[in-house]
């Protein structure tokens, strides 16, 4: 075993994979399948572990990068990584879905090959394009859960699948009861952020669930904002005039990203500062 793991050459591992069938990306069973790289799996869990290993000192402000819709923009992804790596004081990057364009595993891996060169961990939420064909399964294999939450730097992040059209508006997506449960309990965090791909005022969001969804956010304690993608252009505002700020990111194609700095003021109220970086 130690003998075989000492071989680092990709060609050799591919040759070995011939006998095992499925460990080598070029030997693709179907573009809809996700057999291939054993390294590029459970990326969400791996990036969360990296975060947990580097805790932010209590009371510090948290700075993170926000973007979305990396789909098929590989040159732009490389430029983005170079730019982000020059920034200081960042803890993580979050990406609001549509990692891929065709819901194919190989596309998700292409994006990861570039984003894995970031100095910071990155975390994603699933987009509608990531659900085409068997994309939802590929996403779960390569990245991880469709709905999840974590706490870092006194901030709770809740990421939720809002791609209702991909489930043909079955009335269950987004999972509002799950969201309610997550945002109602800060679990020791001092503020919180929600991120999803499709914003709740979009035609691809199940309109029957919009009131319950937006209400869950409006009543969520210490909520800073909801982050969205899907629209490919920057937008910020109180979409429903209910005190909840929605921030939509531009796509990777636009060669810009957002840096968000979050902290609590003297009255323990959450505050943020938004900076748009063009590169």
């Amino acid at each position, binding site marked *: 075993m130690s003998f075989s793991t000492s071989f680092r050459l990709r060609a050799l591992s591919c040759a070995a994979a011939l006998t095992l069938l499925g460990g080598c990306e*070029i030997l*693709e069973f179907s573009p809809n399948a*996700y*057999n291939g790289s054993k390294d590029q799996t459970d990326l969400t869990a791996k990036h969360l572990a990296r975060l947990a290993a580097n805790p932010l000192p209590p009371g510090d402000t948290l700075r993170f990068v926000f973007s979305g819709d990396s789909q*098929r923009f*590989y040159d732009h992804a490389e430029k983005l990584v170079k730019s982000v790596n020059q920034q200081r004081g960042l803890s993580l990057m979050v990406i609001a879905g549509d990692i891929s364009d065709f819901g*194919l595993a190989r596309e998700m891996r292409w994006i990861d090959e570039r984003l894995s060169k970031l100095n910071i961990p990155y975390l994603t939420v699933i987009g509608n394009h990531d659900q085409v064909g*068997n994309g939802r399964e590929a996403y779960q294999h390569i990245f991880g859960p469709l709905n999840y939450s974590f706490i870092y730097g006194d901030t709770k992040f809740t990421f939720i699948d809002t791609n209702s059209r991909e489930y043909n508006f079955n009335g269950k997506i987004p999972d509002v009861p799950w969201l309610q449960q997550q945002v109602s309990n800060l679990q020791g965090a001092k503020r919180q952020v929600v991120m999803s791909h499709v914003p709740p005022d979009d035609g691809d969001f199940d309109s029957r669930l919009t009131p319950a969804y937006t209400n869950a956010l409006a009543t969520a304690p210490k909520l800073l904002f909801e982050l969205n993608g899907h629209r490919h252009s920057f937008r910020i505002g109180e979409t429903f005039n209910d005190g909840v700020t929605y921030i939509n990111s531009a796509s990777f194609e636009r060669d810009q990203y957002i840096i968000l700095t979050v902290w609590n003021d003297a009255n323990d109220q959450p505050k943020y500062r938004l900076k748009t970086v063009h590169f």
Partner: protein
Amino acid sequence: MRQFLTLLLLSAATPAIGQVSATAPVAQAVEARPWYRPNHVQVQTAGGMGLIAAGVGYTTLRDRLEADILVGYVPEKHAGSTLSIATAKLLYTPYTVPLSDKFVLRPLTIGIYGSYTHGTINDEVKGQYTKGYYWFSTDTRIGPLLGGRLSYLRPTATPTDRQRRISAYYELGSNDLYLVSLFSNANRKSLSPADVLTLGLGLKMDF
């Protein structure tokens, strides 16, 4: 092992019948066997056509042009759902290099394939999307093929028998969606042709 078993089964099911001279004109060869009887059987792994795929094919233009049909299978653990893939290939092999009495190399085969995948999870249902929401098909793929093969000539009863051979082949390929990714303006520098390649390996038995 699985490939060999499948090949054995297929070869047993379709006994060789050719009693036609290897040098006979093509028209004569076609007349000698019923039109629907295939010229070869094959098994393949990968190349986007299944973990395992098997099929039959026809040969014409003095063994230079082949039309193959395969049915492939991808188990759920590799794709999230069980996929069956129907593939049609059209292959052209311009020249043949005899290596010895028993071995022949066909260094170049070019071709195209089209495939249809059944069993994907989020397959478009009527009314799910507005027209043109996704411009591409999730089930139908088309792509180029480039390969080669080494053939072993099986002994025949008389020297004039039709050439029976068993060949090992490789096929590099890609598909429409990978090629769109490669050739779109946004990826001139980032993606390389090697990124979009697939590889299929197979055995083909001509009889």
